[in-house]
């Protein structure tokens, strides 16, 4: 039973994973908070349930607990999934009362799992090293003897006895150091499959068997072919074990990024229940628990501040170095560090739902996924081993039929060497290792890559469309100018305009309301509010009919604009958005609002352009404003006055021109455009990320994340190509060489020991090359 506990009790988790993966979803419009159900879901592990009839008993006991909406038991797994807002302790009590033992199925404790994995890896490493030394301590001296004396022939009886002893010792090596190859080979043989073990077992086995035949029946082979290959057998086994051990070490380093993320999770949380502060394990924090965090402590789960204010270091998640101020109503994210004040917050996402847990999950999934470039290698490695076996047989036959004497020896050597040198591992490792490091590296920079495909496509982006508002700019517009007409008073105009806009959530409207509030203006009452799509709004305030919107709206209502059109154009030329305000069908003012460009947008855009990427700005704003912002940001091309639903068309237009298009938006109203682009980038603000909504999510608001993402993808793809090229060339050149194709021309035949060394280090080379990516640094910031 206990073996089931940690892993099996979470069908919800996997279902979630699968669905996400399956739909490959592009639900860009989804609110990142939608995961939070009002009813919590808890998983219990039941002990002592021996028969299927227990199911009903346990379920009804749980359903009787106040707050439980449903309880369903999976008998095979001995788990119950409980839906509802009941306290975990009540659930446990209810099950105990029913006569069973229960415990909370903790969200898989990543930390423990990791520690366990490391322990297992360490033990495996030690075993491999021990096996290496056993094999090499026999193989080394034998090889030295063979090289120095050149005596590995079996002619006299004394030699036969001596070599028999060595043969038995070598068998010992095969047993102690190479048993796993033989067992693996046999098991997969029975399974009609073949792998690296097959090749090594066949290669070393053939060499050893042939040598034993020479020892026992020297007369069965020609004089010149009476060599033994015990030293090769032992050394090959030793070297390959050594290669595996070193590869294991190197692999450990490829997952550093995920280890760091997992390490961010707090272990305990201090919650307030029934007016008492309790320190509980993080897995037991429930939705809506009130959590206290003191300065210097980690935020244990996601939540919303309900008391106190503080500054929080979110750099570990977003890459944003400056601490972020938090007060009542602000959200906090698990894994970030509370710097200054003590706060109370209400848990809004716990367990697997926290942003951090989702990030870890996403990075893990992405690390295991394969970019299309790896597919060919996959196809090849599926047929690789049997093909190599066939080549080995064919090469032996060729030597036997056409080779010089001693043909038998040549045949054996070439077959053995072919089997030993072929390395499907290098081929198989080439892509995943680089993806693992590359995706991890990106995550460290606050760039979340959904999968291998996104990674590969991002490296090929030739055009990048940037949404203006919130992407290039801060997305928080401010009123910059109020130009009144005639005898209108600025304060009064602003009051009317702010009153009119107070019900609207449009960012421009909010800027006007804020501006009025800053000046201490009190709002009036609105009636007959009417939004005119794409043009503006109309309403009545204080008995006056107010009209607020663009030039087109004014013209339609035949409102005299006079020289204000020019004034508006001038404002627009300064990257401001001018809006006309009319009272009782007469122009009262132009109110201009501007959204400042983010500090580092210009530098980031320059970085993109420097990398040969065509940068295009997209906005719903008028041409003049768009032009001004584009100029300021250093962008030559822009699409202005684009309605939200037209954004995806613009993406398609660029695609028709043959561009590989990246689209960057805030992930909420740009959903269709993000989905249709070759790579959709959702730009997050802080930790409130639209994790599931784009191919690549930038955790911090800076556009440098885009350049970083593309740079990491390029570096990773380059690394994969190096690996694939190396692995292909190695096998394509190595196997024929081992078979002896060079012998007729140059008299060269590969020594099986050298083949063993090459094989052992080829996969190590791939992993090491992938590890080089860890040193990758995105350019200047």
């Amino acid at each position, binding site marked *: 039973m206990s*073996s*089931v506990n*940690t*892993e*099996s009790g979470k*069908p919800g988790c*996997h*279902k979630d*994973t*699968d669905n996400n*993966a*399956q739909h*490959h979803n592009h639900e860009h419009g989804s609110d990142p908070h939608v995961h939070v159900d009002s009813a919590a879901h808890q998983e219990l592990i039941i002990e002592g349930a021996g028969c299927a009839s227990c199911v009903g008993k346990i379920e009804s006991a749980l359903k009787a607990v106040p707050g439980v909406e449903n309880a369903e038991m999976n008998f*095979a*797994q001995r788990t119950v999934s409980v839906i509802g807002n009941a306290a975990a302790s009540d659930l446990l009590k209810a099950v105990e009362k029913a006569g069973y033992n229960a415990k909370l199925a903790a969200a898989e404790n990543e930390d423990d*799992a990791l520690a*366990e*994995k490391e322990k*297992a*890896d360490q033990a*495996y490493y030690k075993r491999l090293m021990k096996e290496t030394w056993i094999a090499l301590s026999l193989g080394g001296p034998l090889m030295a003897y063979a090289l120095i004396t050149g005596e590995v022939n079996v002619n006299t009886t004394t030699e036969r006895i001596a070599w028999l002893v060595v043969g038995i010792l070598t068998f010992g090596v095969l047993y102690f150091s190479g048993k*796993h190859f033989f067992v*693996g*080979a*046999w*098991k*997969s*043989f029975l*399974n*009609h*499959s073949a*792998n*690296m*073990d097959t090749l090594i077992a066949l290669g070393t086995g053939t060499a050893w068997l042939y040598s034993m035949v020479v020892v026992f029946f020297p007369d069965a082979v020609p004089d010149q072919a009476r060599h033994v290959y015990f030293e090769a057998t032992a050394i090959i086994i030793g070297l390959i074990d050594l290669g*595996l051990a070193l*590869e*294991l070490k190197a*692999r450990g380093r490829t997952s550093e990024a995920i280890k760091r993320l997992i390490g961010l999770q707090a272990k305990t949380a201090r919650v307030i229940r029934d007016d008492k502060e309790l320190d509980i394990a993080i897995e037991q924090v429930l939705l809506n628990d009130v959590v206290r965090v003191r300065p210097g402590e980690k935020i244990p789960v996601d939540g919303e501040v309900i008391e106190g204010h503080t500054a929080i270091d979110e750099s570990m998640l977003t890459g944003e170095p400056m601490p972020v101020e938090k007060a009542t109503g602000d959200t906090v994210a698990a894994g970030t560090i509370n710097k200054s004040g003590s706060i109370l917050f209400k848990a809004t996402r716990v367990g697997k739902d926290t942003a951090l847990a989702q990030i870890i999950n996403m990075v*893990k999934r992405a690390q*295991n*996924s*394969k970019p299309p470039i790896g597919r060919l290698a*996959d196809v090849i*490695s*599926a*047929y690789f*081993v*049997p093909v190599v*076996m*066939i080549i080995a*047989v*064919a090469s032996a*036959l060729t030597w*036997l*039929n056409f080779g010089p004497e001693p043909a038998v020896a040549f045949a054996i050597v070439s077959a053995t060497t072919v089997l030993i040198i072929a390395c*499907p*591992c290098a081929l*198989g*490792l080439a892509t*995943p290792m680089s993806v693992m490091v590359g995706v991890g590296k990106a995550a460290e920079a606050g760039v979340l890559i959904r999968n291998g495909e996104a990674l590969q496509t991002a490296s090929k982006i030739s055009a990048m469309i940037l949404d203006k508002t919130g992407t290039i700019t801060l997305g928080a517009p401010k009123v910059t100018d109020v130009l009144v007409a005639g005898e209108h008073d600025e304060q009064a105009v602003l009051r009317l305009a702010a009153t009119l806009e107070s019900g609207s959530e449009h960012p421009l409207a909010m800027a006007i309301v804020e501006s009025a509030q800053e000046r201490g203006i009190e709002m009036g009452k609105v009636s007959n509010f009417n939004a005119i799509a794409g043009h503006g709004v109309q309403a009545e305030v204080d008995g006056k009919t107010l009209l607020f919107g663009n030039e087109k709206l004014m013209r339609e209502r035949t409102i005299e604009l006079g020289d204000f059109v020019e004034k508006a154009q001038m404002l627009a030329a300064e990257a401001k958005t001018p809006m006309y305000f009319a009272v009782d069908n007469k122009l009262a003012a132009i109110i201009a609002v501007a959204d400042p460009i983010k500090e580092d947008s210009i530098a980031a855009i320059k970085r993109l352009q420097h990398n040969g990427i065509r940068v295009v700005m997209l906005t719903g704003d008028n041409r003049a404003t768009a032009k001004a912002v584009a100029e300021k940001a250093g962008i030559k091309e822009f699409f202005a006055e684009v309605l939200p639903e037209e954004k995806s068309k613009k993406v398609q237009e660029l695609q028709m021109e043959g561009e590989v298009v990246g689209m960057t938006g805030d992930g909420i109203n740009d959903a269709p455009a993000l989905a249709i682009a070759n790579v959709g980038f959702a730009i997050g603000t802080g930790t409130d990320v639209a994790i599931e909504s784009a191919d690549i999510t930038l955790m911090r608001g800076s556009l440098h994340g885009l350049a970083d993402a593309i740079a990491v993808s390029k570096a990773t793809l380059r690394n994969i190509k190096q690996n694939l090229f190396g692995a292909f060339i190695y096998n394509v050149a190595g196997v024929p060489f081992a078979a002896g194709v060079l012998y007729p021309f140059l008299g060269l035949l590969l020594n099986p020991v050298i083949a063993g060394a090459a094989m052992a280090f080829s996969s190590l080379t791939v992993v090491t090359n992938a590890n080089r990516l860890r040193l990758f640094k995105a350019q200047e910031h």
Partner: protein
Amino acid sequence: MLLINIAGFALIALIVWWFWLYKPKEAELGENDLVITVENGTYSPSRIKVSTGEPVEIKFIRKDQSPCSETLLIPDLQISDTLPLNKLKTIQLPALAAGEYAFHCQMQMYRGLITVK
């Protein structure tokens, strides 16, 4: 010599037949009791039959220490997951259309096939 050549070609034919042409029997996925053991370079059983149209669970237990065996991929279903050592891991499959779905380790040395009928 002729005999050796015949033996050699027979061996090649045997390799082709054994590793590619032969279709081993499939294990049927019963009532949640099938566990695939990952050990010694293989999935055992490696061929599983499931019925079409209903979501199923497949359980894995990895006893193999080799790091290759850690990752399980079902590319057609976009599933990738890690198998912890010596612990049962359940993989949920959605309702599937009839067909064959391969699963394998990161390097494709461990290979298996889910047949949906």
